[in-house]
């Protein structure tokens, strides 16, 4: 019965600085005693302790200084920086671990490799997020703590930031970031597949799915020659998104970057589909036999013209997109963007 009071007092004082504990405990005991009737029953004690409230809150009342890691004054900046840092770190660690595990897998089976890639990537991303969180938080705690101590010049209206320019079309940050991540991830995966010439086309063969009968789709030599250019195009795409992320709206710089990126990609695509001997001869033979095509050449020509058709289609879209982009840059909308 008495036990409850002791436990309560202990639970309050253990949260306080050591040099005040004894005094607060003595005072609290006296106060609780005053609030209790003579010969208190357990119900009386429970009632009094309930009135006094949660030990956590009571202890907070006894403390003379407010305690927090980051004050509300810095919360906005903290959250903003935290968001950016976490997104960037996640993207970077995702890409690098993917490249690392994909290029040098330890596992020998396909299932093992998939498990390895996912497992390693997941744990790397999580641990880099924790690092980022800790670092940003510590920096802000330091800023908050020391920033308020060494008082700087008083705030003046002159230090206000400039208004963003009207009449600009914003480029969504999320879109740029996602674009950057997509380009990196898929670029890395595709480059890896090309490097190992592991692009197969699956088809149905004699009642079972046959992964290209183990015959690669493309010609080894052609692919290897092509690979550096492809990697360059991925880099250009990432750089383009980086420029857009930094500038944040459409202007000449972003439009130029956008144009270079689009032209690079489409030219690359056109060159790629028109490369002679692109398709693996063994693959063509096999496919010709399967589709009962009159000859390998006919099939190759068919595939080539289909590919050219698709690329032409994409090229038209790219051109339209570029025209629209440049028109927008030089004739900004009247409506101001908030």
């Amino acid at each position, binding site marked *: 019965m008495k036990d409850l009071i002791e436990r309560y007092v202990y639970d309050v004082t253990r949260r306080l600085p050591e040099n005040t504990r004894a005094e607060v405990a003595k005072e609290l005991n*006296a106060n609780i005693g005053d609030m209790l009737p003579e010969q208190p029953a357990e119900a009386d004690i429970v009632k009094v302790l309930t009135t006094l409230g949660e030990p956590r809150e009571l202890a907070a009342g*006894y403390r003379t200084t407010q305690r927090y890691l980051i004050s509300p004054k810095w919360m906005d900046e903290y959250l903003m920086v935290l968001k950016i840092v976490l997104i960037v770190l996640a993207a970077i660690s995702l890409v690098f671990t993917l490249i690392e595990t994909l290029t040098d897998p330890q596992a020998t089976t396909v299932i093992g490799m998939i498990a390895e890639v996912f497992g390693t990537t997941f744990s790397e991303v999580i641990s880099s997020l924790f690092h980022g969180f800790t670092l940003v938080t510590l920096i802000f705690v330091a800023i908050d703590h020391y920033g308020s101590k060494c008082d700087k010049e008083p705030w003046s209206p002159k230090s206000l930031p400039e208004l963003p320019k009207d009449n600009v079309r914003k480029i969504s940050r999320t879109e740029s970031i996602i674009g950057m991540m997509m380009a990196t991830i898929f670029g890395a995966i595709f480059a890896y597949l090309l490097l190992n010439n592991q692009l197969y086309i699956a088809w149905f063969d004699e009642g079972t799915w046959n992964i290209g009968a183990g015959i690669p789709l493309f010609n080894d030599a052609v692919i290897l020659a092509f690979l550096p250019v492809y990697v360059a195009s991925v880099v250009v795409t990432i750089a383009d998104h980086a420029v857009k992320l930094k500038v944040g709206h459409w202007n000449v710089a972003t439009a130029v970057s956008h144009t270079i990126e689009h032209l690079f990609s489409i030219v690359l695509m056109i060159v790629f589909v028109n490369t002679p001997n692109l398709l693996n001869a063994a693959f063509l033979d096999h496919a010709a036999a399967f589709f009962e095509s009159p000859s390998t050449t006919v099939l190759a020509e068919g595939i080539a013209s289909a590919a050219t058709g698709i690329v032409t289609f994409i090229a038209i879209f790219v051109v339209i997109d570029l025209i629209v982009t440049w028109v927008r840059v030089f004739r900004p909308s009247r409506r101001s963007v908030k």
Partner: protein
Amino acid sequence: MIDKTLLENMIGELRRGTQILAVLSQLADNQYGYSLLQRLEEKGVSIEAGTLYPLLRRLESQGLLKSEWDTTENRPRKYYLLSDAGTEMYDQLKLEWNTIVKELDHLIEGAKTK
């Protein structure tokens, strides 16, 4: 219909600022925690025990209250009393309080007649 919790929050906030004045006003003579609580309650001002006890300690550490342990009775009690600085602080706060009352009365009355 106004939000009940919001109303309670606002009343709480309004009253919080007056707590110190209320406590200082009753400490011209010796009081221990619980007697002060009862005294305030008798006069219609209720401060929660969990708020009052820490507040007394804080005011003491700010030098506004003096304290003394009375160990003559069977249960020791800590008595609080206004210090000189506390008395002066109380006088100043009282003046400020009167100003606030006048200002707000003026505002509220003025709003009525419009």
